[in-house]
Structures are given as structure tokens and as C-alpha cells.
């Protein structure tokens, strides 16, 4: 990079004080009002106990956290979140990898395939959820009818596993395109001389993919895993809210959904804030990981 000096200032720059402060003002005001103050309040609320109407507030230290960790419902929610994100991650990456490999090989129709496979990115998670809720609706859904025909007693309204399968499918369907575009870009960035050398040595395409392509995609795969976890933790809220509402019997009550129900439905602000803080810590770790590895990952311009 031809950056001026190491702290991100251009070598040719302006020595003024008032103008840059004015330029920064809109951004910093918005951040202060809607980012820093709310984040700090979430942090302080986590250590307070307040009644739902906000009449009395009491400092309780780590009690909210202690109660959370002791709560069976919360542990279940953590478990559900882990199962969900792992399943979603595995499904998304595997499908995207296969599709990216195939796209990289074909010549005819490549652009058209790519355009269609990318479309779900434009679709809201909640709409993806509603589409899949319909397809798998036990009464009218065509895919549920197929399953019934095959002798599977499918009912995501009663069976927790079925509900989980449903939200994983909906979430993955929407997100495969994201992993796909990054993997395809990663494959295109591999120097063709490497592949040619291997071909001259007699390695067939599949073997070249597994011994050269896949290892070189390592950083991209890591980056995508992080991004998938972030997606699975936070953006899945819409799907859960529209499709299962955390049910049946808490089978899809992921952490970000529980934060919402505890805060806005049960009005248990202290517990909700404590859960927020735990999620914040997670988001922080994920972002740091992403920054750590993203620097090696910048040559995608195709």
C-alpha cells in the first residue's frame, strides 16, 4: 500500500483544526447518541436490578450474570445457539464450496449461474424464513407434503428437531451466496501457474482442488466461518421471530432472540442486559478475529 505514513495520514495533507472537527461532527454525534451511550447503558444495566416500570433501581453486581449461568433456560439457549450456528456454518460452507468449485470449472453459462445463485443475498432473512415456513408448513407446504408422502412425520410446530432443521435450512439458503462469492473470488485469485504445474505433473482437477485449491483457500474459509458465526448469532433473529418464535418448547430459542423476549416481552431488563453483554463479548472476539485475518485476504478485485 502506498499509504503516506504508518498512522494512516496522507503525506500530502492539510494542517487545519476547525474544518476536520466539523467534518467529524456528524459521525461522532450519531455514534455518541446511538452507539456509545446505549452500549455503556447496556453495560451498566447488566449490573443493576430494576423493576419493569423503572421506579426503583438497585446495584446488584454480578448477580444478573450469576443467575443467568445458573438458569436452565439460558444454558439451553446457549446450546441451541451453538447447534444452530454449527449446523448452519457447515451446510453453508459445504454447499458454497461445491458450487464455487463447479463455477470455477465451467465456461459456458458461468455468468448466468452466478447471477441466479447470488439472488438470495438481496432477500431479507425474514422473507427467507417465511418462504421456508410455507414450504414446510405441515398443512399446506409442498415440501412437507413430500416428506409426509415419504413417511416422515414432519411437524415443526410440535417437534423441536424439525423446527431446528427448518430454521437452519432457511438461514443457510439465504447465506450460501455470500460464502460462494468469496470462495469463487478466492479460487480465481490462485495463480494459474500453480494449477498448470500440477496439471503437467498429471494431477487431475479434483486432486488439484484438494491439494492446491483448498489449502490456499484456508484464510478465506476462516474468514467465512467467522462471518457465518456473526450471521448465525445476530441476523437470525428475524427468521426465528417470524417462523418459530423460539419454540416449540425453546428448541429454537437462540441467544439473540432470548435477549429480545427477556427485554421487551418479559421486561426483565437486568437479565436482558447481562445477556447483551455476553453477546457483546462474543461480537468483540469475532470482530478482532476478523481483523486479524482479513488483512491477508485483501486481493479479491476481479
Amino acid at each position: 500500500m502506498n499509504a503516506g505514513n504508518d498512522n494512516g495520514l496522507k503525506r500530502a495533507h492539510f494542517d487545519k483544526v476547525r474544518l476536520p472537527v466539523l467534518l467529524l461532527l456528524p459521525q461522532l454525534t450519531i455514534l455518541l447518541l446511538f452507539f456509545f451511550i446505549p452500549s455503556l447503558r447496556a453495560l451498566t444495566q447488566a449490573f443493576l436490578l430494576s423493576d419493569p416500570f423503572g421506579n426503583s433501581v438497585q446495584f446488584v453486581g454480578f448477580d444478573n450474570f450469576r443467575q443467568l449461568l445458573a438458569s436452565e433456560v439460558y444454558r439451553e439457549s446457549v446450546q441451541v445457539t451453538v447447534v444452530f450456528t454449527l449446523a448452519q456454518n457447515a451446510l453453508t460452507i459445504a454447499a458454497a464450496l461445491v458450487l464455487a468449485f463447479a463455477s470455477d470449472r465451467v465456461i459456458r453459462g458461468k455468468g448466468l449461474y452466478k447471477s441466479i445463485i447470488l439472488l438470495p443475498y438481496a432477500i431479507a432473512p425474514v422473507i427467507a424464513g417465511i418462504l421456508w415456513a410455507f414450504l414446510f408448513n405441515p398443512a399446506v407446504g409442498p415440501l412437507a407434503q413430500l416428506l409426509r408422502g415419504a413417511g416422515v412425520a414432519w411437524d415443526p410446530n410440535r417437534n423441536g428437531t424439525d423446527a431446528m432443521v427448518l430454521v437452519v435450512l432457511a438461514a443457510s439458503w439465504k447465506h450460501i451466496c455470500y460464502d460462494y462469492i468469496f470462495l469463487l473470488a478466492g479460487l480465481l485469485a490462485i495463480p494459474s501457474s500453480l494449477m498448470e504445474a500440477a496439471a503437467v505433473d498429471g494431477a487431475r482437477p479434483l486432486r488439484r482442488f484438494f491439494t492446491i485449491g483448498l489449502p490456499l483457500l484456508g484464510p478465506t474459509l476462516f474468514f467465512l466461518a467467522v462471518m457465518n458465526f456473526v450471521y448465525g448469532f445476530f441476523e437470525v433473529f428475524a427468521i426465528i421471530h417470524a417462523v418459530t418464535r423460539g419454540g416449540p418448547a425453546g428448541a429454537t430459542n437462540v441467544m439473540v432472540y432470548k435477549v429480545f423476549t427477556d427485554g421487551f416481552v418479559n421486561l426483565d431488563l437486568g437479565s436482558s442486559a447481562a445477556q447483551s453483554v455476553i453477546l457483546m463479548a462474543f461480537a468483540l472476539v469475532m470482530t478482532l478475529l476478523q481483523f486479524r485475518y482479513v488483512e491477508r485476504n485483501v486481493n479479491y478485485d476481479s
Partner: protein
Amino acid sequence: MVERTPLLNAACHAILLGGVAMVVLPLYLAFVAGSLTLDQVQEVPLPWVPAGHFLDNARTAWQSAHFNRLFLNSFIVAVGITVGKIAVSLLSAFAITYFRFPFRMTAFWLIFVSLMLPIEVRISPTYESVANAALPLQWLAELLHVADGWRALTGHQVEIALEWNMVNTYPGLILPLIASASATFLFRQFFLTVPEELCEAARLDGASPMRFFWTILLPLSRSNIAALAIILFLYGWNQYLWPLLFTTDADMATAVIGLTKLVPKADSLPAWNVAMCAALLTLLPPVIVVAVLQRSFVKGLVDSSK
């Protein structure tokens, strides 16, 4: 690389056709369901060819969800987020890359930190802030005992009750979603690659900083701005959690929220035909944007994730 692998090529086409089917089939089935009558949509098995009622159902959906108003809201919110975020980000990226001033690095780090927490983890305090954006001012006033000081000075008792409620307003829907600095970093990265000579030449010619910004930097950033605009439009249109908290006034809801009200519940009429029509209508604007502006879209997606 030229290599004869007819079998593998056929397999690759099969895989890609499978991928295409995976994307298209749910949309096609939604279209079929959307074209049926209420009786037909409950038939087992569901027909696989569309009937002729799509426009009727679309009209029903459009009217019963008040989509006139909600689509307008969605457009205002999506465009507001896009324009707002790009504008504040361009200005602050310009400030931190092209100016030397005290606390430059502090500003940089304040902006940097905001990348780390998605809005989902701070919804309830953010809601409070929007319900009364003057809350911090009031808090500060109480902390500094402004009222007591005023009374001591003048003998008058004043009640400090600032309130600035943004619930059910466009700024309330838009501003909290602008409050993250991803776009600032995208522009900063780009500005760092702009040749130094351009700025030097502008300064030698006696151009003011803002003139350099408008006549040189902004035109150079055009393709980055376009790419980012697409991503931000989708982001704005598809928001769910934040508008959901704001639907106390049905007229301020967005299209995506209105759609969920049409989805049949367990004890209501299973009007999936209308719901599927509504779903297809709601997903159409962002899908058209992506389909038409494909090239910029991919660039924006890859850039904004860096």
C-alpha cells in the same frame, strides 16, 4: 486451462443447475401458491402449475397490508440509510486521512470501536435513547446540578425536562442504523490509495480543502460509492429488528414488517396465497437492484466486508 474432462464438466453443470434449482424452486413455489385461490392453496398435494389469480391476490395483499404507505416508508428508510451513511462516512474518512489535528487518532479509534457491536446486542438501551434522544443531555444536566446553580444565581426554580422523542419518526428509524463506521473504513482504505500528487497539485494551485474534496476526491470515489450504495440499500430495505420495535404506529412500519402481519397464524385462515404474493412483492425491489447492478453489487459486497 484447456483440458478435456467431459465427465467432470457435465458434473459441474449438474451441480450448478442444482444450485440454481435450490434458489429458484422456493421462489417458483411461492409464485405458484400466490396464484391460487384460498381453496386451491389448501389442496393436497399442492398444484405445481400456477393458476390465474396472482394479480387478485397481489391486490388483496397490497391493500390489506397498506403497502402504499409501507413501501414508501421502506424506500425512505433505505435511501435515508444509504445517503446518510455514505455522507457522514465520506466526510469523516476525509478528515482522518487528509488532516493533521489534535486528537486525530482518538477520533479514529472512537470510530473504529463502533465496528464491533451490532445493533442486536444493544437494542433496549438504543431504544431508550431513541425514545428520548435528549436523555444524555438531561442526565448531564442533573449530574452538574445545573438547576441548583440556576436557582442559587437567580432565585428561580427551573424544571429540566428535555424530551426529544424519535419513536415513530424517520430519523428514529434511520439514525441508529447509520451508527456504525464500516463505510468510513472503506473510504479511508480507498483514500489511502489515491496518489499523493493529486493533493499536492491541488494545494499548489491554491485549492481549499473542501474544493479538493468536491472536485477531485469525490469524483474519484464514484465507483466505491455506487458499490456501497447497493449494499446499504439492501441493508436498509431488509432491516427487521429495529423497525419491529417501532411499529407502535402501523403507518410507520416498513414493508418487511407489514408482510409478517399477513403470514397465517395457527388459528387464522390459512391465506398462504396472499402471504406468498406479499412476500414476492416485498423481495422484488432489492432483487431488482442486485440483478440490474450485479457488477457493482459484487464489488460492494467484497469491499464492505474487508
